[in-house]
């Protein structure tokens, strides 16, 4: 009895789950290393851990959307530009057009849906390569940002700022500061939204018909078609989901920056892709997990925290380290794939 159980467990931990495990272990090892090295500067504080989520709330949501698209075997490189456009539109509507914070937010979400519909239509129904379509989307969104305004617009809408500054305190984990006042760690609502979205996407992927068909389409489009799945509609929905989450991610991003400008979130698409890949998503499709992507994002955040705490290293070390990690994970994935292939024959 127990023997068969062990076999079951062993079977469950296949290459992909193992990769995810490595990602999670790596994150904790890195974080603990940071706590040991930079203990005096306060790396080990609960707040520092929460800051990882606060500064990357938008990216968590965007990476979740990216993961969904990547599972279908596609890619969406328009996300960084869409975030910039979202922030710019939010700032422009609230500051120059006098639109309230709530309608402005709803409008940018609608914008995300429309953006996704167009991209999804081109990819799914016209069979144009996702890379080219979303590349055009990237140009379009970045250019539109510049058409809305080439100047930076800071947000001063009170409702919006109250959302951005609203702190949710934890009832524990506090410490006494120099004046002897208890300071509790806090998060912003953006973190709560990001985590809720993450769980929702996870549940959707695991337990809904739509989620399962995404895996099926990514695993083998032909088989999915033969099984009677609507491949095109599934793909379209995946792109709509990605762009919608992008609009939402842009909103969360904007809560952090409270401004819109043309150069905003440049290169964010690569951060999202890197996070997904580090989290175990295969670009060939069919494999992926949004929680892996979460840890991908957290690893990126930890590297950034390392560099901030170290103080003397310049910010481009972040990119080099992420690239090295990417290289490590990609090579690992290919080794697993090769082993799998061998076992098949």
């Amino acid at each position, binding site marked *: 009895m127990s023997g068969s159980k062990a076999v079951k467990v062993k079977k469950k931990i296949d290459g992909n789950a193992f990769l995810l495990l490595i990602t999670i272990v790596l994150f904790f090892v890195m974080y603990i290393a940071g706590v040991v090295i930079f203990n005096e500067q306060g790396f080990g504080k609960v707040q520092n851990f929460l800051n990882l989520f606060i500064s990357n709330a938008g990216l968590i949501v965007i990476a979740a959307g990216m993961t969904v698209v990547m599972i279908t075997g596609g890619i969406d490189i328009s996300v960084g530009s869409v975030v910039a456009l979202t922030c710019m539109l939010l700032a422009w509507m609230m500051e120059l057009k006098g639109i309230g914070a709530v309608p402005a937010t709803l409008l940018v979400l609608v914008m995300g849906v429309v953006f996704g519909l167009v991209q999804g239509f081109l990819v799914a129904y016209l*069979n144009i390569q996702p890379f080219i379509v979303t590349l*055009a989307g990237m*140009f379009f969104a970045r250019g539109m940002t*510049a058409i809305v305004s080439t100047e930076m617009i800071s947000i001063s809408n009170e409702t919006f700022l109250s959302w951005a500054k609203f702190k949710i305190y934890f009832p524990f984990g506090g410490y006494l500061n120099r004046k002897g006042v208890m300071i509790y760690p806090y998060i912003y609502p953006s973190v709560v939204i990001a985590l809720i979205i993450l769980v929702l996407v996870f549940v959707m992927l695991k337990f809904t018909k739509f989620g399962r068909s995404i895996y099926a389409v990514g695993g083998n489009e032909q088989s999915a078609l033969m099984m009677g799945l609507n491949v095109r509609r599934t793909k379209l929905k995946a792109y709509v989901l990605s762009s919608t989450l992008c609009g939402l991610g842009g909103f969360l991003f904007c809560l952090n920056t409270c401004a819109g400008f043309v150069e905003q979130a440049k290169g964010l698409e690569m951060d999202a892709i890197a996070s997904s890949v580090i989290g175990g998503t295969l670009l060939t499709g069919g494999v992926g997990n949004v929680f892996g992507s979460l840890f991908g994002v957290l690893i990126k955040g930890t590297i950034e925290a390392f560099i901030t705490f170290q103080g003397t290293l310049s910010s481009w070390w972040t*990119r080099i380290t992420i690239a090295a990690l990417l290289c490590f994970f990609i090579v690992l994935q290919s080794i697993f794939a090769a082993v799998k292939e061998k076992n098949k024959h």
Partner: protein
Amino acid sequence: MNKLKKLTTYRLFLPILCLVLVLLVNLITTPDFFAISVRDGMLYGYIIDVINRASELVILAVGMTLMVAASGGTDISVGAVMAVVAGVVCNVLAGGEQSVTQYNNPYILGILAGIAVAVICGCFNGFLVAKLKIQPMIATLILFTAGRGIAQLVTNGQITYVRVDHYKVLGSSIKGLPLPVPFFMAIIVVIVTTLILKKTAIGMYIESVGINAKASRLVGLKSSKIIFLTYVFGGLMAGIAGLVASSRIYSADANNIGLNMELDAILAVALGGNSLGGGKFSLMGSVIGAYTIQALTTTLYAMHVSSDQVPVYKAIVVVIIVSLQSPQLKKWFKKHSLGKKAVNGNEVA
């Protein structure tokens, strides 16, 4: 009618049509677009500007075409490789100083170092793609992410200037030549590559590997070696493009050299009617695609569109062009035109 049909089925028909359309727009909006003036034996004008500015893109597109054809994937690291090469060349020539007015090392040494680095980058990408069988876009994502960081590392985070007239030659013009030097660099690259592809069997090998790598291996082609070689070649092209780009501004600006060039190069390949899925390719198509992109950009500048806003129009044009080339839409058109023909046939009968 038959002639027209023959013309429309000609492979380069759509790419050339796109280029002509872009130029036609100019005929209406900016009539002086085609004006060419001569000063000191040099030609000037918008058209010359297009020919000049597109050079790096043409060089990159040549390399990209082969990589796409053989591996069915895109190399997104070429822009970053350009920055690394520029950084290395300028740093070798400046001997580690930030700004020099004379070479501290021989010119040829700098060039060789730059080309060597480019080839090494190509080998790295090629190894990941061909030997480890990693998706090209993901494999090149590594250098894409790290490249500019490495370039910063090489130049110590500064912009290294080489203020020597000799260094500027590759990116400007020399007396006696009516057209700028970069144009000739691009033409030489295209001619040499075409000759290699036509005079040896390598072009056919690349197509064969791109269509079916496994089958090619079974008939005796070393598929992975051919894919590897295309990536080395792609790296070399990025190196040459980096040299020209760096020579234009006689410096190594790690943040800006080759910025977003990889995207334009991939676009050029797609606009040239090449499938990004690999297989059959047309080098001339990509070259025309590259000139189309630059013509479009210059057109927009001539129409006084600000550089931040150019991408919007670029995106719209790109979507229209790739949609026109989409097999799905072609099928749809065919269905409808066939329907019409059937109606016509009935009338005749």
